[in-house]
């Protein structure tokens, strides 16, 4: 899903490692069918996965999906730049 978004030049879901490890592209699937590859348990618990909370980079849509973006990039402390 995330790769598709990037290839279309679209934005909306934050793009991180693209490998299921960093958790930045966390989304909630509100409606639709999909499958998922392995995702870091540091970011997606078993309960979350069961409730449709997934990482977009590991998600393959199998229908049109409605999603809600949950992930956000935490910036390193750079206080002079804030």
């Amino acid at each position, binding site marked *: 899903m995330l790769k598709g978004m990037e290839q279309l030049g679209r934005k909306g879901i*934050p*793009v*991180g*490692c*693209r*490998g*299921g*490890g*960093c958790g*930045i592209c966390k989304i909630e699937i509100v409606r639709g069918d999909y499958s998922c590859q*392995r*995702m*870091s*348990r*540091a*970011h997606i618990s078993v309960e979350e996965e069961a409730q449709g909370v997934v990482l977009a980079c590991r998600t393959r849509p199998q229908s049109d999906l409605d999603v809600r973006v949950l992930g956000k*990039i*935490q*910036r*390193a*402390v*750079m*206080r*002079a*730049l804030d």
Partner: protein
Amino acid sequence: MAMTGVLRPGHVQLRVLDLDEAVTHYRDYLGLIETHRDSQGRVYLKAWDEQDWFSVVLREADEAGMDHMAFKVLDEETLWRFQADLKKFGCQIERIAAGELDHCGERVRFAAPTGHLFELYANKDHYGNGISTTNPAPWPEGLKGMQAVRFDHCLVYGEDLDGSVKLFTEVLGFQLTEQIVDGDLQLAAFMTCSTKAHDVAFIRQEGKAKLHHASFMLKTWENVLRAGDIISMKDIALDMGPTRHGLTRGQTIYFFDPSGNRNEVFCEDSYVYPDTPVLTWTADRTGQAIFYHSRELNDRFMGVTTGA
């Protein structure tokens, strides 16, 4: 100063979500050489110009990140001296028996104030670099992918930057080479145990300890560009580059392994001697310090990490 204490980064143990995918990445794309698999299923690899048995250990786990980074010290006497000094500093020490990692001697594990696990060891079996020690060839044949020369350093994020800098400089004898400062507040600290631009680097960030990247050295800018070609040819997730860092002057490219751990390959960074002054970047020039050409901070580069 001759190198008498900590010699160099010895290895990093990384957690990966899928071992086979990770081995393909590190062996076939980065160009490390697989040297061993242990009874726990961990895979050991080394860069071609390293002499010891391994410098990267891949462990399959349900989350990505760094288990620990280990440094080789001169000898066992040095190891026990550091153990005593680390205890005195207030670190909790754990002794890891020889052979817990195959081909590696006893390790002294401690948590740095930023929360990262580091280890020291004195002995690792010799594997060789594929080149004779008599009338040596300049490089071995049959290398793959980016042909990484050595595991060079890790950059990590943590809250108690001051504590970790104090530990590495005052207890382990590292030298501060470069830093980013905001007035009195140090935001980034690059440190070496040798004469390199960095053997380990820390960036101040609130929250849990994180891995920013594990880095591998290449020889030339041409090699860095070629790494970029391989990243596209093999559909590896690119992060940034090829470009130049202000900090360390390194020519660099960043990408992610299939589990999301960030890797760097780079060449031609700066060097220091014990009398080289510390280089300081001011916080208003952080963009230039990190990416010398664009001078822009990139949210993904700054904000995306895996665990430690």
